[in-house]
């Protein structure tokens, strides 16, 4: 010690051992949230607030521009929307679109699942899937419309055809990626139960890959919705009750610009509703509950 080179030892402290008192008096330290905190914790409340701000900016810009042929203010569009719903059957138009969309979507989803199930069970299937997705995924569905019209004529079948194309490839790609990412341990556990073939895919692979499948379903939904509206701009679902895209096209021809915007708002509202209500509910009930997604 005296030479100053020795390293200092940690100081020794007295030992102690105590019997812990039972909790109770200080055990519970929860504080109720204030009303403002509760409101700002609601995702939907925050979203609606944002939408209101965007609407206000729109209104201000429209009023400043004061050229309703180019950019009608928000209130005009809201009026036109209300009017279209009440008197021009906008909701029926939307329903016509959604009905066609549902057909194409369901067929596309089933096909995607069948193809990916083939792809995970055989090597040829896997090669086929990767080749097909590489070829067709970058191909815009709307580019197939002329051919579809040639094959199936001017009608619902052509629309369903392009919808299936827009749903099938992104979903197949995501589902396949999800299947290949399922851990070996979980696969072995499933095979340990004696599961093989289709039951194995349904009871192990699909739920285990569900986060990817759900992401694929969301992407496919967005692709399908925009493809449908674009296709309807070319022609309606049928001569009498064209869909939303046709509604937009008709009104543009008649220079009813607020109605055109009302049609667009409807497209957006339906998109938001599906995302916020349908997919959110599915997420809350599945991947969030299972702790596979935060």
């Amino acid at each position, binding site marked *: 010690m005296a030479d100053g080179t020795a390293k200092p030892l940690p100081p020794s402290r007295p030992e102690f051992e105590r019997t812990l008192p039972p909790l109770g008096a200080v055990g519970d330290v929860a504080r109720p949230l204030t009303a403002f905190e509760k409101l700002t914790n609601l995702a939907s409340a925050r979203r609606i607030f944002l939408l209101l701000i965007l609407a206000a900016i729109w209104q201000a810009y429209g009023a400043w521009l004061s050229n309703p042929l180019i950019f009608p203010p928000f209130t005009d569009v809201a009026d036109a929307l209300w009017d279209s719903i009440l008197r021009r059957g906008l909701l029926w138009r939307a329903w016509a679109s959604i009905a066609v969309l549902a057909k194409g979507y369901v067929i596309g989803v089933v096909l995607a699942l069948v193809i990916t199930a083939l792809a995970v069970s055989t090597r040829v299937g896997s090669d086929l899937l990767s080749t097909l997705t590489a070829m067709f995924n970058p191909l815009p569905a709307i580019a197939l419309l002329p051919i579809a019209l040639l094959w199936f004529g001017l009608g619902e079948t052509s629309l369903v055809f392009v919808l299936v194309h827009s749903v099938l490839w992104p979903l197949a790609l995501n589902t396949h990626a999800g299947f290949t990412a399922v*851990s070996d*341990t*979980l696969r*072995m*556990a*499933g*095979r*340990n*139960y*004696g*599961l093989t073939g289709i*039951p194995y895919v349904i*009871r*192990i692979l699909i*739920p*285990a890959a*569900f986060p990817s499948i759900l992401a694929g379903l969301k992407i496919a939904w967005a692709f399908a919705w925009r493809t449908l509206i674009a296709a309807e701009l070319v022609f309606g679902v049928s001569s009498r009750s064209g869909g939303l895209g046709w509604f937009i096209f008709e009104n543009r021809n008649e220079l009813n610009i607020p109605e055109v915007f009302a049609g667009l708002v409807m497209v957006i509202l339906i998109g938001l509703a599906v995302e916020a209500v349908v997919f959110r509910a599915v997420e809350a009930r*599945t991947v969030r*509950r*299972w*702790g*596979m997604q935060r």
Partner: protein
Amino acid sequence: MLLGPSGCGKSSLLKSVGGFLKPVEGEIRLSGAEVDGPGPDRMMVFQEFDQLPPWKTVKENVMFPLTASGKLRRREAEDRARSYIAKVGLERFADVHPHMLSGGMKQRVAIARALAMEPAILLMDEPFAALDALTRRKMQEELLALWEEARFTVLFVTHSIEEAIVVGSRILVMSPHPGRVKAELDADGFDHRSVGGEKFQKLQTRIHDMLFADRIESHG
């Protein structure tokens, strides 16, 4: 009890018994019947925590192999699942999804799931290796208690000498590159209280020397 350094093929041997790997030569027989492919008569407990399907609750997880293999119907499977969950002390967590459980609890569920099938042989692939030391010791004790009660056959892979002696009754010591069985030792009658005892130390040193000798050979 399969004991050996990493790379000596303990897990491969276990997986072959499980039917996940096919032997290139020879065959594996369980009570006279050849093993070809995985089956619910040989339930496996893995080291990894993600062996439990996360989309099923604890109870559903234990029921899953019972119903999937067609061994029991739903109602009976549920009763049996309840009794085995109680055996591993997780009654309070029966309706919880696995992501809410700690590592030790997940392994308990995996053990309950395997035992509920009442398999001909229980295969355990380093089931406690990913647990902390305190939990590991507790789980070893619990496994021994369950064994005392039901006396099932276990094939257990480990790389811990202490675990092999405490949990196992017969130890196969394996040597690596290529994997061969070097010795079969008797380790009956040891438990956690005998750790540090003279007989225990002797056996431990013997196994240690065997494994250590390998290393000198392979490096020298």
